[in-house]
């Protein structure tokens, strides 16, 4: 019984296991990381544009609520901070790879 599970485990390690095969088949057309990053960038930019519009509206007197503008700014700020963290992670991963001894 133990041996069976062990070989099964080996098979999945080699990528020959049935579950792995099914999974790779399913994930044949995944969204690339670049696409996902571009989409997230777009979302953050959208929030930034909204914040800019909110500030403009407040200055122009269209928006009477100060807090609505501040909340739009905060949203853009937090989204941008998240983006910066993702960027830092990517760069540190890149640097780790570049430090590989050859």
């Amino acid at each position: 019984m133990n041996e069976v599970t062990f070989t099964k485990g080996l098979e999945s390690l080699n990528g020959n296991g049935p579950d792995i095969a099914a999974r790779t088949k399913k994930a044949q057309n995944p969204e690339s990381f670049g696409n996902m990053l571009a989409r997230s960038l777009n979302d953050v930019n959208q929030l930034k544009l909204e914040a800019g519009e909110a500030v403009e509206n407040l200055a122009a007197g269209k928006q009477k609520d100060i807090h609505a503008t501040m909340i739009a700014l905060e949203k853009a700020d937090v989204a941008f901070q998240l983006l910066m963290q993702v960027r830092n992670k990517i760069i540190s991963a890149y640097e780790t790879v570049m430090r590989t001894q050859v």
Partner: protein
Amino acid sequence: MDFFDALHVSSSGLSAQRLRMNLISANLANMNTTRTKAGGPYRRKDPVFAALAPSRSQSHEASFREMLGNRQKEHLKEVAVVGIVEDSRPPIKKYDPMHPDADGNGYVAMPNINLMEEMVNMISATRSYEASVTAIKSAKDMALKALEIGQ
């Protein structure tokens, strides 16, 4: 229920308290007003708040995840101003025969506004506003703390 929902709910609270503050200002400013468009003295006004589920976009074909999110959001109530009511207390009769709005017996109907009551309401509105601001700050701090995990 994402991070932004907390901001939106607190934002509705800020709007509600701001409107309450405006009404208190109007009540204080009109403490001695004897003429109104509707006739008679000014009557103090109070807002009526109601807890409402935030408006959500009804997509044509909601995924299971969206439906679950919507069901969770049903418990997330924003505050909404559903109306402004006038105080039903009768006006105060003040004897002032020289006043242009005095009746035949020399009495003038003055607004029944208690300065102390309005001041207490004002403190309450200010504190509620501050509480909502603190809630926003805390929600933001929580999000920023989560970002510190990666550092």
